[in-house]
């Protein structure tokens, strides 16, 4: 890419930050500190990641890629587990889930020559898959907790009739999966119509032919769609067990 954004142009971005800052000031939203802090933090994080990426891109791909993927998966796991801290084994379930998803996606990309094994391609694309899976797992955990709380009476009724935890959780698991998959399906339906997806936009800005950019976008969009679905399924089908004890009794989350 030959074109660059000048440092002066970047400074002008402060104007964009000042707009929500001013709104918060006038309407006393109490968000001034958050707006400033998140903007500064975001900028520093991006510059740091830029430096790290430059370093990693110059390393042997067999060293740089595994290091970066491990870091991304670990950070994503710590972040997603916040949504289900009360549940046992949540860290290991998310970590295992993200590893399985990433390995599966990499196998598909590399096996069918969709993506080449270079840090420039693997790291940003894996970042999108891991990031979206992280969000899906966090949302599924939250949704599952809320379903178990709302449907506690129905679950008790099912257990009292002789249902196993798996049978008693069927409704809650189904609703969790629905909640996770429907926005994902909707997003795929409107792709390119409501907004041009990020990766495609980036490639076009970088001077790549739109049709090539679209091919890459398809690879990443379908990969994200599949990873998000698998994330929700892993969380739902593994985590429901932790709402019960070994005697098939529902446990209070506080007691877990």
């Amino acid at each position, binding site marked *: 890419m030959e074109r660059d954004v000048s440092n002066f142009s970047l400074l002008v971005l402060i104007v964009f930050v000042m707009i929500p800052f001013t709104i918060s000031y006038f309407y006393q939203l109490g968000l001034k500190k958050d707006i400033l802090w998140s903007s500064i933090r975001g900028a520093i994080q991006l510059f740091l990641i830029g430096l790290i990426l430059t370093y990693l891109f110059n390393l042997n791909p067999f060293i740089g890629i595994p290091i970066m993927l491990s870091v991304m998966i670990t950070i994503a796991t710590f972040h997603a587990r916040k949504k289900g801290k009360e549940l046992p084994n949540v860290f290991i379930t998310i970590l295992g889930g993200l590893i399985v998803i990433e390995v599966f996606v990499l196998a598909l990309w590399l096996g069918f020559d969709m993506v080449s094994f270079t840090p420039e391609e693997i790291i940003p694309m894996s970042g999108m898959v891991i990031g979206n899976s992280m969000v899906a797992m966090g949302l599924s955990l939250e949704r599952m907790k809320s379903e178990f709380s709302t449907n506690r*009476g*129905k679950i*008790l*009724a*099912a*257990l*009292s*009739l*002789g*249902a*196993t935890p798996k*049978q008693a959780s069927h*409704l809650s698991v189904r609703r969790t999966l629905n909640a996770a998959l429907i926005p994902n399906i909707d997003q795929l339906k409107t792709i390119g119509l409501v907004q041009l997806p990020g990766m495609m936009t980036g490639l076009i800005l970088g001077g790549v032919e739109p049709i090539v950019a679209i091919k890459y976008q398809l690879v990443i969009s379908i990969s994200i769609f599949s990873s998000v679905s698998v994330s929700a399924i892993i969380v739902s089908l593994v985590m429901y067990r932790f709402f019960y004890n070994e*005697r*098939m*009794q*529902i446990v209070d989350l506080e007691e877990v």
Partner: protein
Amino acid sequence: MSQVIYKLDNIYRRILTNINIEIHKGDRVMLFGPSGSGKSTLLHLFNRLDDPEQGSIFYNGKNINEQDITTLRKNVGLVLQQPYLFPETVKDNLMYGPKLFNDWNPDEARTLLEYVNLPESYLDKPVDELSGGEKQRVSLARTLANKPEILLLDEPTSALDDQNIEQIEQDLINLIQHNDLTVIMVTHNLEQAKRLGNRGIYLENGKIVEEGLLPDMLDRPETEALKNFTTNH
């Protein structure tokens, strides 16, 4: 004296302290006492929705820890305070339990609805369209669909109006007369306890304060605690 079907031996759980109960086949045991006295906790122990911290429970002479939990729950059916019906239709609810055990016979649906005095046309009715009383009757029929040996009832009429209470009571009386059922029921309503029960257990602060035959026990209480309770209810 008939066979002991359920026995609780020196049970401790949450508020429950040193609970010893023998339930005989055909008993209609009414559990009553102030709110928070441990009645529902006690009822959940029979169905193993909860387990004691200390003590042993025997069903048909065998420790319940050595029995299959799902089979025990099928045989010791529980009707909760709220109906908590499953989606979608009345029929879906009636066949829920039997289907878990591959024991659903569609011909039984009508009999189940007859037990609770609902017409056959209700089978395909969505549960959202039922009144509060009808929901509770479907909940009762759903538990009966499992053909339990013991029926546990956790204040099934507490959220209903007088007309629905009378209807459910009549359903229960019919059931008890036509089936070989042992009933253990939590109730706040002492008149209801007299109408439905033949034995009473009065709990206070997790302890059995008095037990005896109904209605005598409520007409002539022996302890001050039960005297006060009957005066206030």
